[in-house]
């Protein structure tokens, strides 16, 4: 099996796919950091605040013009309505910022900023914007940064599943698998090695994205309030790897069942990106009105575990799991879901699919 793994690594290293995907992943990670750097800059914050200020002023002017035109019927209403709408919009922004950033270090700062803009746009100084920018560029911990920027979007699970699907399909589309020993024992080795390869790919891309993000955020001047304990980091990386691995295995299994790269790619895009999981989660939550146990199933979806990993990245061992396992940390919940998903895929490949002729 180790020989097969060496062979696949050789093929990956000498082919284009791995390097093209790695370049895309690195570029995407850098782009995310660049965008976060741009939106958290004092200039951008100042510009946004000015835009809001101008909106409020414009609404007030429009109202005043309406009143001056002597339109008795519409004047007061026309004056009051836009101002009220603008004020409401600014308050909404303040509320949304507070909600969205809840729990994050920068949350209170940006919420305060928008609250200040709502109250008195002229009162803010450059120092205020710089302070808010500093706070927005400070993550709670490195794990929280990775959870936020790398895991929760579903990019990693999608990328690993895509590469796994395309690589596994290549063995059948090019018939290269025929060059391998494919008797009964050979097939067990083959599928076992491919599952191990998905694990290696998951570890590789997790490492690439993590290192790129850490380096890019550091270069962009982002800092951390505190460091993670080694246990927290191990829990975060271990569980993230497990979930990515489980998604990758599922894509590989779809390819082995269908013997089609298209089916594997479609599965990766629809399922491994978290799209289908989000839809199913919403359906389950909606059905909870009829039967509450539907809602209780939602946290136990693999896609929900990805969201948990993103949201509680730095505190996976300190956040309680979903019912009925509220007495254990969410890390255990993710571990159970990830292990069951990966185990099912492996059992299917090694137990059922290996019996199928090449």
């Amino acid at each position: 099996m180790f020989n097969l793994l060496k062979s696949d690594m050789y093929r990956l290293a000498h082919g284009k796919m791995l390097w093209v995907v790695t370049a895309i992943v690195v570029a995407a990670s850098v782009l995310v950091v660049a965008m976060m750097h741009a939106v958290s800059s004092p200039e951008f914050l100042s510009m946004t605040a000015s835009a809001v200020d101008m909106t409020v002023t414009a609404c007030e002017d429009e109202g005043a013009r309406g009143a001056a035109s002597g339109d008795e019927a519409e004047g007061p209403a026309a004056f009051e309505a836009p101002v009220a709408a603008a004020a409401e919009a600014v308050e909404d922004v303040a509320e949304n910022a507070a909600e969205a950033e809840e729990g994050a270090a920068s949350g209170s700062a940006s919420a305060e900023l928008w609250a200040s803009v709502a109250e008195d746009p002229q009162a803010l100084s450059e120092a205020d914007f710089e302070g808010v920018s500093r706070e927005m560029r400070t993550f709670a911990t490195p794990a929280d940064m990775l959870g936020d920027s790398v895991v929760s979007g579903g990019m990693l699970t999608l990328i690993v599943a895509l590469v796994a699907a395309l690589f596994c399909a290549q063995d059948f589309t090019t018939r290269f698998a025929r060059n391998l020993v494919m008797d009964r024992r050979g097939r067990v080795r083959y599928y076992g090695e491919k599952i191990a390869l998905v694990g290696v790919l998951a570890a590789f891309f997790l490492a690439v994205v993590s290192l790129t993000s850490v380096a890019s955020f550091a270069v962009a001047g982002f800092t951390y309030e505190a460091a993670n304990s080694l246990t927290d980091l191990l829990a975060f990386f271990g569980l993230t790897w497990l979930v990515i691995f489980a998604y990758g295995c599922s894509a590989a299994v779809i390819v082995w069942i269908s013997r089609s790269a298209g089916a594997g790619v479609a599965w990766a895009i629809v399922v491994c990106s978290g799209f289908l999981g989000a839809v199913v989660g919403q359906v389950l939550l909606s059905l909870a009105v009829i039967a509450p146990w539907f809602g209780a199933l939602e946290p136990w979806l693999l896609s929900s575990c990805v969201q948990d990993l993103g949201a509680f990245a730095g505190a996976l061992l300190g956040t309680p799991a979903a019912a009925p396992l509220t007495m254990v940390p969410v890390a255990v919940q993710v571990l159970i879901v990830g292990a069951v998903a990966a185990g099912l895929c492996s059992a299917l490949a090694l137990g059922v699919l290996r019996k199928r002729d090449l």
Partner: protein
Amino acid sequence: MNVIEACGLAKAYGGRRVVDDFAMTVAAGDIYGFVGKNGAGKSTVMKMICGEVAPTAGEVALFGVPTGIGSVQKTSGEGDQARRIGVLIEQPGLLPNLTAYQNLQAKALAWGIVDGPARCEEVLRLVGLAGAGKQKVRGFSLGMRQRLGLALALLGSPDVLLLDEPFNGLDPEATRAMRNLIVRLAQTFGITVVISSHVLDQLDRMATRYGVIANGRMVREMSAEEVAAECGGSLRVRTADSPRALAVLEEAYPAAAFRAEPGGTIVVSGDYNAEAVARTLSGAGQVVLEFSQDHRDIEDYFVELMEGGATHV
């Protein structure tokens, strides 16, 4: 020693048996021509031999060891024996984005071949692709792909080669090069070759044994000598005095068979020598009016066998 023995082999797809009660014996050193119509089950049999396809019933023994592929119990020989077989079935399994050398190296790593890089260079030289090792397979011609497929099959230094239609799509020159290579492999390295092909005249030039499959069953296995004897020529002789000529020949060649045709033509078959027959007739003062040699076409012979697939050995 028999390197391949198949017994009672069967394969069913969706309830339809494409191979049924199939028996085959290939001895060490044979160049075994495996002949059959399209859909007769040649490729399926070859896939069952190398383990690509699991038989529905029956057993395959490689080098005297049952592979156990079709049986419930695992045998100790499984896997180890499969490694002694090089396979080129249908199209070669090549990675188009890699070079010829990298394709070979990928398989060498997978098989754990000791000193893989040197072996890759060696087989590239052997199949005449030494100069194309660094070229991407995507740009290879059909002939080059077939040769690279053969190189992949040879990489593990196999004792047996299973080649399914290796001449497909090759031009005459490439076909001749491939045939010569196969013969050289058998003669120089002692590799046993099982080769299925529709190109019967190519098989005729190299096969030492034949197996004919029809409707998923082995119709007949025979040596090249047996085929030559059965397809062997007959001599048509017409003289001015046919009864006298027949008597002379029957006396001179008791092992040959003679048949007198209505027009006075004598057909000689079996053990005879045309030159000697001519001398005998001349010595007996016979005026020869016709003297020609007929050969039975090997294609006709095999087609006849394939169409008689209902009767099997």
